[in-house]
């Protein structure tokens, strides 16, 4: 057995081992003792907490307060003309309204809106109400992209440069002076600005060519998209998208498995606007030259390191020599885990 698990037993006090496990399998793998902990986004955190399998060791806001998570990106060819820009502005308006509506509903847990929010979440994530309620507590729904947001994205880019998956050449090759310049160009707040002047419309602007929307399967971070699609939120029986004169449909392939898949779908030309994690949006844009722009934030925070409920692990040091599952090196969760461990002077190594 020692031979089989070659790097299991070296017992270093400052090394944590990671495997890559699809988040949906993390709770089960933890329960079955296949891993000692994991880092994932909601609702995969609350799944374990509510299910009594795991407990949260550290929320992502403790690691990096206000860290950006999911974003909204557009395919540049889509907004290359007047009509595309108009559609994107209207979309932004729906995104903002939906986000505001969520926050309002969350503010009053007794309200009918909160009940509706829970219903939409249950339907979107296929989780039960208690998991959904727990999950909603641990993230911020927001669309504004402030300096902190940009700085964080620069930070992520820097980390990728550190592990060698993004090199200077790519930045320079894209015509950017440095990372800051790159993020400045890649993030475009103007649609949020345009959105403020969008009014509800009785006619659909794009009746024949729907906006093809990409998003991740059951990812509660991207709830705004589910709210904006729901016909139960507005009193007029339309969805927010429809209310702003938009014809929006799920892109072929949506809901997707992860942000990389959304970016691939951009590259393949069958997604116009997509919700996805910020790291894949950066990575694939740089390395595969996928012609996209980040136009809004979707949420910040909302991830956590989870360990077995009954385990005696109470701090990151307790993870030394243990195996922690991550969604993969290109995920924000991986970066968060790496950051957290770095601050404790610990190292993250792959388990083979």
């Amino acid at each position: 057995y020692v031979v089989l698990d070659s790097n299991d037993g070296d017992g270093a006090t400052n090394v944590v081992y990671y495997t890559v496990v699809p988040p949906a399998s993390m709770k089960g793998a933890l329960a079955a003792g296949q891993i000692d902990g994991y880092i994932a986004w909601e609702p995969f955190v609350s799944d374990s907490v509510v299910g009594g399998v795991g407990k949260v060791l550290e929320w992502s806001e403790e690691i990096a307060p206000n860290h950006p998570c999911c974003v909204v990106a557009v395919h540049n060819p889509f907004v290359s003309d007047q009509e595309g820009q108009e559609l994107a502005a209207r979309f932004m308006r729906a995104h903002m309204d939906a986000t505001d509506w969520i926050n309002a509903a969350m503010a009053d847990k007794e309200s009918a809106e909160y009940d509706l929010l829970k219903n939409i979440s249950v339907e979107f994530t296929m989780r039960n109400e208690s998991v959904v309620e727990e999950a909603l507590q641990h993230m911020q729904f927001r669309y504004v992209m402030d300096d902190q947001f940009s700085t964080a994205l620069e930070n992520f880019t820097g980390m990728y440069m550190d592990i060698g998956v993004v090199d200077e050449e790519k930045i320079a090759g894209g015509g950017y002076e440095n990372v800051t310049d790159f993020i400045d160009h890649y993030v475009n707040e103007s649609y949020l600005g345009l959105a403020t002047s969008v009014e509800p419309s009785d006619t659909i602007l794009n009746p024949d060519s729907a906006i093809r929307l990409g998003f991740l399967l059951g990812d509660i971070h991207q709830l705004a998209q589910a709210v904006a699609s729901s016909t139960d939120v507005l009193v007029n029986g339309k969805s927010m998208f429809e209310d702003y004169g938009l014809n929006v449909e799920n892109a072929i392939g949506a809901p997707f498995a992860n942000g990389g898949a959304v970016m691939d779908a951009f590259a393949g030309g069958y997604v116009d606007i997509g919700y996805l994690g910020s790291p894949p949006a950066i990575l694939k844009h740089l390395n595969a030259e996928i012609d996209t722009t980040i136009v809004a934030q979707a949420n910040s925070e909302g991830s956590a390191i989870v360990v077995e409920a009954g385990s005696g692990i109470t701090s990151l040091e307790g993870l030394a020599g243990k195996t922690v599952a991550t969604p993969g090196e290109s995920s924000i969760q991986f970066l968060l885990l790496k950051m957290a461990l770095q601050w404790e002077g610990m190292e993250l190594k792959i388990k083979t």
Partner: protein
Amino acid sequence: MKSIVRLARGVMSRNWRRVLLGGLSIAVFIGAWQAYSWYLNANDYGYAAYIPYPGEVAEAFLDSFVTTDATGLLMMDHIFASLKRIFLGFTLAFVIALPAGLLMGSYQTSEGLGMPIVEIFRPIPPLAWIPIFLVVLGHLWGPVAIVFFGIFFPILFNVMLGVKRVDPILIDAAKTLGAGRQHIFFKVVLPFTTPYLMTGIKVGLGIGWMCIVAAEMVGQYGGGVGYYIWAMNEFSLYDYVFAGIAVIAILGILTTGVAGQIERRLYIWMGMK
């Protein structure tokens, strides 16, 4: 009369025996499954949900055909999505592999030209192409190409083998009966190769199934039974995951069953059975 009765009894008893053994074995299997699920649940294993009870799976199976899932589709939609991909991939593979195999089996020059390319692509598991094909070929032809790669080589190699095994004496016989190159090809080589082709098709379809499920699990192309399994797993609906697996098993049995039937008919028609 007497002997007919005896025969009937003999056949019956043989069939009875088989049915009995089969029933017994399936009963034991389901019993063991039930017991394992029960054991996990009773002892509060955190992953008990991953092994649902047989009954739950049966219910989910039936439900999946009448209730739309979270992606808004019925099981039939997923099945058709997968079948369409298999069908296209198979057709493409057949249409290219058959002439290529005939050519490469017949002429050393074609073989010399074709084999290096074949030898480059053959050992690559078709699924390794998923990330590339998804984007470059798109959501329809991407998975079709993956199925194509799974089916292409078994057909190609079997046809080549068939052509090379053509009994030279049959070609001699045809020649002495006045046959030219074309006649030999269409009246001797092609019919001789048919059983090999069928073997290639059967093997290929098996691999094709494997490919399509995996392709749909890794890449999202919109629907498909593999996609269904992936999605149900993401939602932690394990009874539906198992239902999806059952659907695949049944489709696999049907596909090879149909191929087997065609093969049998063909053999009877060709006087080989």
